[in-house]
C-alpha cells in the first residue's frame, strides 16, 4: 500500500489518560475559541489526513509553501494550513506557551503548543494561493476576512467534532485497514462536491477498470451558495452505488473540509489527502476545484508535472458527453462524431433543470439519482 505523504501517518489524538490530565488542569491554560471550520482542520491534522502536518504551519513552512509549494522539509504541499487569531487574542500569548483551543461554547477541542506567532500580508497570501486578489473569488474573500495574526504549532486533539455522517466518516488508519482487508492493491480516489451524473459514473467506471477499488470521497463542509447540500450528495451517491456498482469494488466516506476553490493547487491538496487515506490514484477532471473563470479548464492537469515526487498518480479526464451515434458516454479522444450529436454534461444546466423541479433525462443522470435529489424541496446551499 502507498505510504502516507511524508512517510508517517500522523496521529495527534490524545490518549484517554493524557486527555484526563489536561482536562483536570484546564483552568491553568489560556483559551482561544475557534470556529467549526478550524475544528474540522484540527480533526484532519489529528487523524493524519493532512500528514505530514501535525499542527498549524509555522512561518517558514508558510513561506516555502507559498513560494515553492513545498514544506521546509521539502515535502510537497500546495496550500497553507494556518490558524488566524486577533491582536487581542495574541496579546497574552508567547512562543512555547501551551493553550487550549475551544469551540464557541468554551468546550475544549485541542491543546496547541505555540511555536510561532506572526503577522502576514493578506494580498500576498491570496495572490500566491489563488493567483488573484479579486474579492469575488470566494477563497480571496475568506482570506480578507481572516484575523490579523497567525499561530503555528503542534495540535493534540482532546474532543472530536460530532460527524454529520458518523457511519460514513472513516479516518486514514481505517481506510488503510479496509483496503487491505478487501485486498485492494490499487485504489483510485474520486473527489466530489456534486451528485453524480452519467459523466461522473463513466470516469469512475473507466478508472475502476484499471484499479481494484474506487474510493468515493465527497467533500463535506462549507461551500459556496448554489452548491449542493451535503446530504443530497451523500444520498444520491448511496443510490448510484446501490444500483449501478458492484458492492465489493466501491467505498464511500466523507472528507470534512471546506472547499477553497484554489483550482490546480487544490487538486494537489486533494491528491495528498487521498494518498493519506491509502489511495494510489486520483481522478482529476476538467476545472478541478475551480470557480468562475479564475483557472483554465486543464490547469489542474498541468500542475501535476511539477510534482514528480507526489507518490499518488493522477488519472486525467477531459469533458464528457453522451453521443447519440455511439450511444454511450464518450470524450473528445474516443468519439469522431460532430458536436450536434452530443448531449454535454453541464453542471449549470443540470442545476437549472433540477431547480425547475424537472428530472434530467436518463442521457444525463440516472433516474434513481434524479429522484433522490428531487425529494429535497431545495437541494442547494
Amino acid at each position: 500500500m502507498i505510504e502516507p505523504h511524508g512517510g508517517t501517518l500522523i496521529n495527534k489524538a490524545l490518549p484517554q489518560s493524557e486527555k484526563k490530565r489536561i482536562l483536570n488542569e484546564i483552568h491553568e491554560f489560556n483559551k482561544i475559541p475557534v470556529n467549526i471550520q478550524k475544528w474540522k482542520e484540527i480533526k484532519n491534522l489529528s487523524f493524519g489526513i493532512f500528514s505530514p502536518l501535525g499542527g498549524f504551519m509555522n512561518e517558514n513552512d508558510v513561506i516555502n509553501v507559498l513560494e515553492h509549494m513545498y514544506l521546509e522539509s521539502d515535502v510537497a504541499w500546495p496550500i497553507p494550513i494556518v490558524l488566524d487569531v486577533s491582536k487581542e487574542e495574541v496579546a497574552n500569548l508567547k512562543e512555547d506557551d501551551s493553550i487550549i483551543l475551544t469551540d464557541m461554547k468554551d468546550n475544549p477541542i485541542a491543546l496547541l503548543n505555540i511555536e510561532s506567532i506572526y503577522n502576514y500580508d493578506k494580498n500576498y497570501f491570496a495572490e500566491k494561493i489563488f493567483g488573484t486578489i479579486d474579492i469575488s473569488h470566494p477563497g480571496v474573500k475568506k482570506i480578507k476576512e481572516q484575523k490579523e495574526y497567525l499561530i503555528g504549532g503542534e495540535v493534540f486533539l482532546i474532543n472530536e467534532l460530532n460527524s454529520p455522517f458518523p457511519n460514513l466518516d472513516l479516518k486514514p488508519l481505517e481506510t488503510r485497514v479496509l483496503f487491505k482487508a478487501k485486498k485492494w492493491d490499487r485504489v483510485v480516489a474520486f473527489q466530489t462536491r456534486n451528485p453524480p451524473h452519467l459523466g461522473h459514473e463513466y470516469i469512475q467506471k473507466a478508472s475502476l477498470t484499471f484499479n481494484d477499488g474506487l474510493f468515493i470521497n465527497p467533500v463535506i463542509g462549507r461551500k459556496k451558495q448554489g452548491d449542493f447540500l451535503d446530504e443530497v450528495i451523500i444520498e444520491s451517491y448511496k443510490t448510484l452505488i446501490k444500483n449501478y456498482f458492484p458492492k465489493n469494488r466501491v467505498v464511500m466516506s466523507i472528507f470534512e473540509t471546506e472547499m477553497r476553490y484554489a483550482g490546480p493547487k487544490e487538486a494537489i491538496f486533494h491528491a495528498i489527502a487521498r494518498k493519506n487515506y491509502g489511495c494510489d490514484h486520483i481522478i482529476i477532471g476538467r476545472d478541478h476545484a475551480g470557480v468562475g473563470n479564475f483557472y483554465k479548464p486543464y490547469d489542474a492537469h498541468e500542475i501535476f508535472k511539477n510534482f514528480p515526487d507526489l507518490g499518488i498518480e493522477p488519472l486525467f479526464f477531459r469533458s464528457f458527453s453522451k453521443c447519440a451515434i455511439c450511444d454511450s458516454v464518450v470524450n473528445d479522444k474516443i468519439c469522431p462524431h460532430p458536436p450536434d450529436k452530443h448531449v454535454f454534461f453541464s453542471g449549470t444546466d443540470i442545476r437549472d433543470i433540477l431547480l425547475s423541479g424537472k428530472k434530467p433525462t436518463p442521457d444525463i443522470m440516472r433516474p434513481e439519482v434524479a429522484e433522490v435529489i428531487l425529494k429535497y424541496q431545495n437541494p442547494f446551499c
Partner: protein
Amino acid sequence: MDIAEKKTDYENILIPNPLAEKLKNIMKDTGFSSISNYISSILRQFISAKDGEKNLKQAFSKEEEESIKQRLINLGYLE
C-alpha cells in the same frame, strides 16, 4: 519583518555549462520557468524513487488492525 519579505534558504550547486545547456534544451516544453526549478524537480523524482525502494513500515499493529476491522464490520464496510 513581514512574511512576504522573507526568503527561503538555497544551496548553490555548480554544474558544467554544457550540461546546463543540454538541460535548458530538454526543459523547453516542460513548463518549468528556470533551470533551478527543473533540476530540483529531477532530484525530487530521484529521491522519491530511492525512498520507494525502502521497506514500507506498516502504519498499524495487528491489534489495532483487528479492532479497526471490527468497527468496519459494525459500520457495514466489511462483512
